[in-house]
């Protein structure tokens, strides 16, 4: 199982490369314009997968703060009104996070290198209040932001590509690249 798991770990990077190559191949080699665009979608999502993988941390949760942490964060300003409204949601999130924490601790036992990290983490837990924010606990939010942009760019490009495809179909009556090129060649 350990072996499988380690394969699964590097698998993430491999799969992104495989997916990307599938997309790239389709982009270059497919003859049908819509197929090319599908390839493009796959190509782009593969890159997004890569980015998201960068941001992943073992045992970290989603980059949204728990209620008490948020509270801790701005206790000086004394803003409590958000707290009531979202009590339920954040409670649920907190529960989920605790579970993940437990998993993370199991993990830590398996890896010596991680154990050290975790000790310091626990130390810092002791030093501060239990609700302090630790970077190790949350997935990297930056890559998520970047990838939101990338997704949007992807759909925008897809839309434009489809529009051009439709225009080409209107003009040549085909969405096969070779047929269109043939028409241009013979039409001249």
């Amino acid at each position, binding site marked *: 199982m350990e072996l499988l798991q380690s394969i699964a770990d590097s698998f993430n990077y491999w799969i992104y490369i495989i997916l990307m190559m599938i997309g790239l191949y389709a982009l270059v080699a497919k003859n049908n314009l819509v197929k090319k665009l599908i390839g493009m979608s796959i190509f782009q999502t593969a890159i997004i997968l890569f980015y998201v993988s960068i941001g992943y941390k073992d045992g970290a949760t989603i980059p949204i703060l728990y209620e008490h942490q948020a509270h801790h964060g701005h206790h000086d300003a004394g803003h409590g009104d958000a707290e009531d409204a979202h009590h339920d949601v954040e409670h649920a999130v907190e529960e989920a996070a605790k579970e993940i924490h437990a998993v993370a601790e199991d993990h830590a036992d398996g890896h010596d290198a991680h154990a050290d990290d975790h000790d310091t983490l626990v130390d810092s837990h002791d030093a501060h209040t239990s609700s302090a924010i630790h970077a190790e606990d949350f997935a990297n939010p930056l890559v998520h932001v970047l990838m939101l942009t990338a997704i949007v760019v992807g759909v925008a*490009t897809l839309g434009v590509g489809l529009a*051009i495809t439709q225009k080409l179909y209107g003009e040549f009556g085909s969405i096969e*690249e070779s047929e269109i090129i043939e028409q241009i060649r013979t039409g001249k």
Partner: protein
Amino acid sequence: MTEQAPIFILLFPFLTAVIVALVGLRHKSLSWPLTLVSLGASVCASLSTLAQVVEHGPIRYKLGGWSPPFGIEFHIDGLSALVAVTVSVVALLTAIYSKDNVDAETPDKSSQYYSLFLLLVSGLLGIVITGDAFNLYVMLEVAALTSYALIAMGNKRASLAAFKYLIMGTIGASFYLLGVGYLYIKTGSLNMLDIREILETAGLFNSPTILVAFILITVGVWIKMAFFPLHSWLPNCYAFAPTTSSNIMAPLVTKVMIYVMVRMVLTVFGPNYAFEILDWENIVVWLAVIAILAGSIGALAQKDLRKMLTFLIIAEVGYMVGGLWLADETGITGTIFHIISDAFMTLCVFLFAGIVFAKTGARDIYALEGMFKKMPLTMVGFLVGAFSLIGIPPTAGFFSKWYLVQGGINSGNWEYVVALLISSLINAVLFFRLIEIAYFGKKPAEGHDHHHGDDHAKVSEASFTMLLPLLSTAAILIVIGLYNKELVSVIQDFLSQFNLATSIR
């Protein structure tokens, strides 16, 4: 307000693009003046920024008030300021020119056209002034999406060309994005200067990841700039796009991509890494030599005026890629200088091609017959552009070649020098072929007529809005040539931080 000038470079065209999209639906006639005003303002802002950079050194403009690695910043040094001025001025000239073309070639859609036009300009300006590697990608996509549309709004063949461009452009941009990702996984930063600092302090230069990042980014940008083996999308795109589209894209898009390449190599990876640790100058210079020759020879084979010019762009891209990889300060100065002068040169000849197309409706080079008689002023503008591309002093093109050849000699890359000269000669052949056609006309002058052909009754010059940009571009070419020392001193100020003089072989 001058400290806010950097944002205004971008803000004017970008906001006006949205306004044009709105207002243009109801009042079509407003699109053009709005475009002009906004680009004029952008030119002013970029000039003011350039003045500040020259006077006080690089500007770091924090967007959102966040200090650099956390927020996005504009990092404007001499290089970006110069290129920004070039982009905005070229855009303004093209916009003036576009008045008659846009309505004629894309009826009903002029508001969308101008909106896209302005968005393209904002995208390009955004690429130039940003200091953030990922923001550059976003801007790249803004510019790319608009280009696809601006090309696809042309005739039948333009649509297919646009689709190919879309595919190639996406591959290029994605490679760039992936390269930035590889940089990020190793450095954890997106700010260009920050990445550079981390690369140096953490000693990451031997990491294969950084190598792959470098290759991905370089190849991605090469695809976008149509560097020779990756150029196949370019000729048809620019040849069949609407006139204004090719007028704006031919001078700017490839040049801005070269700016990105220079920026990445010098600012992000650093010349030390790109030229010394990797040490593949020779391969790249040879590739550039092939690109130069292939572009020039490709141009020789063309009968279609605009298509011929597109092959010249490919050759010019070879100049600049090669010039950068000469790894010599003078060569890089030449590359940067060539970005500017080539933008105007290409603009000049494309404006001319546009006028010829508008006046005669023909695409091939024989449409030029007798042009010297029919439109002498237009031809004067063309001559300056052609001389500049050939490299005849005192036009800008001569001086960029001057620096490039000097760099080639300094670094001992004789093959590059020879290729440059051969390409100049081929350009001479190309343009004198055109000049000959224009000068001799279909039938040789009827020999010994009494009223020695000086009567201007037959003259039909292009309209004022077409002629003005052409002649201004010609004037700018000469002015750049005469004032090249000043430009070069700005470029060398920029380059002085990289210690290139010591890092050459």
